């Protein structure tokens, strides 16, 4: 007998967790002396109230789709990849090198090149911890955390000592050549006769993110490799019995995970900044954890969760501009979402399961009583 219907697990629990996070966030806003309802209004308006707002919301969402998918793929193999931040950083490095040092005739080719470069760099950065986990048993959580710091230092070194143009004061690469400029929504939609805000950074990599969703869905639920990844994730001992090599699964799933995280750079580095700056990832690697948890590691769920976090980030930015609430409110909300959907999952789940058990019992005994 099923403890709980599927829909409750997939929809009800995340919704309740989200509601709890929202209520607590409201209390936090209240506690610092602001009006939560008004704050909500500003956030909704600022993130969805105009094309410009949507342009930013979708831009953020694109980042989060990539990192969310990255965390999810690793989750399916029961690995907790906290290294999305570092992998995305390296992806940025890959994009920068690819755009700066290769002559691209057209943005479409540059995009293909950048996809390969970002994925390869991100994958490489995930592969080392994966190898150490598979072959030497080093805990992947700790090594990926360490690799985040190492990536930050590496980027720092590259920007300060290698990529910074002479005489420039900023630790940043020069601007990428115009031929690598990715069309943003306004440029993409103009041929269709649709007008979109020119300044908003959402760009063609959003479509790449959607393709990535489909790719991950097919990979996980339709291919042998995905089947093996899930089997390994549910039971390592059973996977061994079935002849699924743990080493292979750890390496492959982390490679895919790292590649996805790295591809985030298509959006923020190539699509938006068009140069590589310090801390370009802005914590998106970590938000991927929240997104994957909320989205139940399913690409469709991740898409929705990434949109939600896009709203949250853009709304939060506007909120901090329009009120005295600092943008760190977003961090708090993010923390609460991770807490409730991840760590305190049982707090919501157990009572709900009991409830469903009671309902089921009631249903079963009712006909008997009628007899």
């Amino acid at each position: 007998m099923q403890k709980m219907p599927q829909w409750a697990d997939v929809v009800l629990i995340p919704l309740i967790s989200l509601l709890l996070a929202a209520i607590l966030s409201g209390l936090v806003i209240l506690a610092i002396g602001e009006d939560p309802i008004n704050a909500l209004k500003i956030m909704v308006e600022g993130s969805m109230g105009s094309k410009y707002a949507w342009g930013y919301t979708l831009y953020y969402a694109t980042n989060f789709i990539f990192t969310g998918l990255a965390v999810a793929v690793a989750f399916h193999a029961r690995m907790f990849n906290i290294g999305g931040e570092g992998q995305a950083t390296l992806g940025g490095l890959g994009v920068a090198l690819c755009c700066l040092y290769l002559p691209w005739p057209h943005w479409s080719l540059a995009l293909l090149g950048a996809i390969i470069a970002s994925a390869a760099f991100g994958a490489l950065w995930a592969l080392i911890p994966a190898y150490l986990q598979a072959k030497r048993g080093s805990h992947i959580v700790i090594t990926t955390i360490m690799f985040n710091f190492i990536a930050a230092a590496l980027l720092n070194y590259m920007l300060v000592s290698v990529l910074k143009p002479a005489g420039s004061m900023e630790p940043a690469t020069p601007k990428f050549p115009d031929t690598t400029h990715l069309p943003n929504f306004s440029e993409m939609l103009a041929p269709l006769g649709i007008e979109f805000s020119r300044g908003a950074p959402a760009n063609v990599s959003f479509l790449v993110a959607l393709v990535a969703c489909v790719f991950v869905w097919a990979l996980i639920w339709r291919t042998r490799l995905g089947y093996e990844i899930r089997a390994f994730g549910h039971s390592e001992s059973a996977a061994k019995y079935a002849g699924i090599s743990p080493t292979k699964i750890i390496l492959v799933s982390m490679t895919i995970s790292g590649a996805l995280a790295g591809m985030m750079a298509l959006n923020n580095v190539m699509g938006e900044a068009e140069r590589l700056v310090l801390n370009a990832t802005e914590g998106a690697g970590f938000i991927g954890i929240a997104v994957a948890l909320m989205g139940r590691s399913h690409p469709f769920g991740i898409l929705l969760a990434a949109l939600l976090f896009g709203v949250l980030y853009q709304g939060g930015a506007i909120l901090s501009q329009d009120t005295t609430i600092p943008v760190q409110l977003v961090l708090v909300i993010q923390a609460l979402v991770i807490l409730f959907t991840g760590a305190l999952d049982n707090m919501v789940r157990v009572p709900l399961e009991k409830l469903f058990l009671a309902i089921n019992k009631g249903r079963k005994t009712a006909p008997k009583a009628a007899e």
Partner: protein
Amino acid sequence: MDFLTLLQLLDATIRLATPLLLACLAGLFSERAGIFDIGLEGKMLAAAFTAAAVASLTGSVWVGFLAGIFASLLLSALHGLASITFRGNQLISGVAINFLASGLTVLIAQSLFAQGGRTPSLSGDARFNPIQWPGALARMREIMQAGPFQQFYSELISGHTIIVYLAVLTVPASWWLLYRTRFGLRLRAVGENPAAVDTAGISVVGLRFAAVGICGVLCGIAGAYLSTGLQAGFVKDMTAGRGYIALAALIFAKWRPWYALYACLLFGFLQAIALRGDVIESVLGFRIQVQLLDVLPYILTVIILAGFVGKAIPPRAGGEPYVKER
């Protein structure tokens, strides 16, 4: 490098190793009891902020100190609730706590002081001031003139805040508690096999909460030291990854108190020398990228974890919530 420069480096090492050591021992208690804690960073940060804020409001560093510990304990309780009571994922809980602290500190600081997420600068009794030992010289300009023993005494032994001395004492205290007392035996047991503790009639939940509580107190001290001892006030994200370095030191130390001291001194020394690029250059004759020095603790930890230099075996029940089984 002359003697005084060496002393200065070691002096900075001690100052910088102190928060690492306290946080590392905090992690040690928690992980020895089977609760992984990557939320050390967040707890320190919360404590750093609360200590500075309360010290600034009351003018008393000790009131701030206690408040800082209290804040850290609150987050510990949250971690305990998630990972012990509700048997949630300890890593995820830790990640959430780090974000929570990073966000809330700035949020509250801004609403209290409106100074862009920092507290006002602390001075006088609102911060921990160096303790001068009898006969010790306080100022560098005087120390420079003194003989080598006096230099050693004044620079290295004397002139630290009380927390530094406290941190050094915590090492033998932790060792004694873990290996010489009933509580320590039980705590170590619950991290290895909670079922053994449970069937021996001891509460697993109680023990683990106690360990997480100790962790909270130590993290609280570490954080309070950052903002009221090492620096004079809170600035946002001022822990700057120290919680993770402490975690790295814990692995380096193979979850043992004395080794923790050595690991933290090593990592503190790396931080100290990273501040003094000039010294490295004069000693080695060439420049080492500061970025390399900054990440050396992390790289060393990865090497240790990979088992190339001795194997680090974590407590066996670590990271897993305790669920009764047949």
